[in-house]
């Protein structure tokens, strides 16, 4: 038989009244994020060579390769492609970042991505230049 005691929660109640609230004051104050936080994707267009590995490994079909012409290698014409990112489908897993051999991709700390216009989330940095 358990012994019934009245008021087991009263000490905790006093302790909670004297502490400061645990609710974060976001968005009135900035929020603390750890180093490894996975936010919005970013690409450095200088380093990208169009090897397509990121498009092949992405689990959410975010990356489409766009044709940007051809270049001559020896006496062959090879196609040149660059990636287009539709970040509204991104699941922030980081597979593209891990597999890019040229370190062109990075997951930043930006997480405020809500927008009424889906076209804002299409990243064309690598395609336009």
């Amino acid at each position, binding site marked *: 038989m358990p012994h019934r005691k009245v008021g087991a929660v009263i000490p905790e109640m006093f302790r909670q009244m004297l502490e400061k609230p645990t609710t974060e004051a976001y968005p009135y104050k900035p929020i603390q994020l750890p180093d*490894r936080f996975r936010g919005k994707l970013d690409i450095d267009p200088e380093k990208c060579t169009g090897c397509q590995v990121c498009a092949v490994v992405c689990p959410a079909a975010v990356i489409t390769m766009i044709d940007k012409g051809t270049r001559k290698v020896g006496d062959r014409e090879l196609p040149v492609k660059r990636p287009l990112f539709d970040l509204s489908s991104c699941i922030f897993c980081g*597979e593209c970042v*891990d597999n890019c051999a040229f370190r062109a991709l990075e997951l930043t700390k930006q997480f405020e991505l809500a927008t009424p216009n889906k076209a804002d989330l299409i990243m064309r940095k690598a395609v336009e230049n």
Partner: protein
Amino acid sequence: MSDESKVREESAGLMEYSVENLVPFGPIHPALKEPEYFKLILEGEKIIQVIPRIGYVHRGLEKAAESRPWVQNMYMFERTCGICSFVHSLCYGQAVEGLTIYEVPRRAKYIRLIISELERIHSHLLWVGLMGHWAGFETLFMWVWNDREVVLDLVEAISGNRVHKSMNAFCGVRRDMPENMENRIVERMKFITDRAHYYREIIDTEETMLARTENVGNKINQETAEKLCAVGPMARYVGLRHDVRLNDPYAAYDEVPFDIVTRTEGDVRALLRLRLDELVVSANMVSYAVEHLPEGPIRVKIEPIIPAGEHSSHCEAPRGEIFYYVKSTGGRTPDRVKSRQPTMANIPTALELLKGQELADLPMVLTAIDPCFGCMDRMSFLETESHKQWTWSGEQLRQYGIKHYFPERFKANYSKFKEAH
């Protein structure tokens, strides 16, 4: 449920019941976190029998897995459930690793154990808070979920995300533990242990919780639980020593010492004590593993084509035993993936627990089995049922919604609405 007389014939082997005694519980109900449909057959206030109907958040994952490469399936199965996401990807990964010739490095096994146990702690804290919520004790719910933030902050510091950790890869883990985390983890685990002892005291002495949980739930004996294939805490709270971590160790569970928790009283209060004790055991395991972490590599890279064969694997999720079966024909995509979640195995036991109970105890008993119906269903069809008069199909519901919210679009597509109705 369109024809009552047809239901009566088909339930051969069950008792006859009439429409007046049948109360539908769900699929949308304020007492349920996730949609499920239970047909309750009542006599006054007592429940005589329960017939389940599941599949309201079924997403077609087993069919979808047959057309995706192996690594992408790992991310898809991780998203079966939010609370037990890591153990899904771990079990799938172990089933596929058995088909290859590679071994998992030792440091990766320890990191897998640390994340699995942190997930178990956060899941049990979530559940204790929910039991307080359904008992009407909202304050307990708030306090427990405040302490759960401590664990989620640790997980975010290690993996980058609070819920879908994405730490698993085939034959290893993707990220190493950060520098100088050891002291922080050990101190936080001590804090969690102290809080768990305090909540145990509340549950044992506080009048509200005792009135709602003592002697609630049909008492079943060990033989019934075994025949109904109960898993996880539902088997351990009647005294069976069923724990995959002990019977068939995987990851680093053969090197980290622990003892499993069993109880013998068969009511909901025993489940509360069992899960809080398990929480303390998990916190000790995390502290031990972090202090004895071996050096070495964390991952072995494997080819994207898995050799032909069949393999299955099981793990201990916070809710019970999780099971994955994988069949490969030597290609880039699997031939068949089967996943069985613990809530599906616990449903026959849950139905047994409800017999003879009062209707008012239904939310407490249903939450006591720790249901995760998002895990259990794996294919989604829009479905709605309205009792007694008419049933709408998915298309009818969709057209009705369009008419309600977008009147101008509805006018343009009026022909589709007429056709559906």
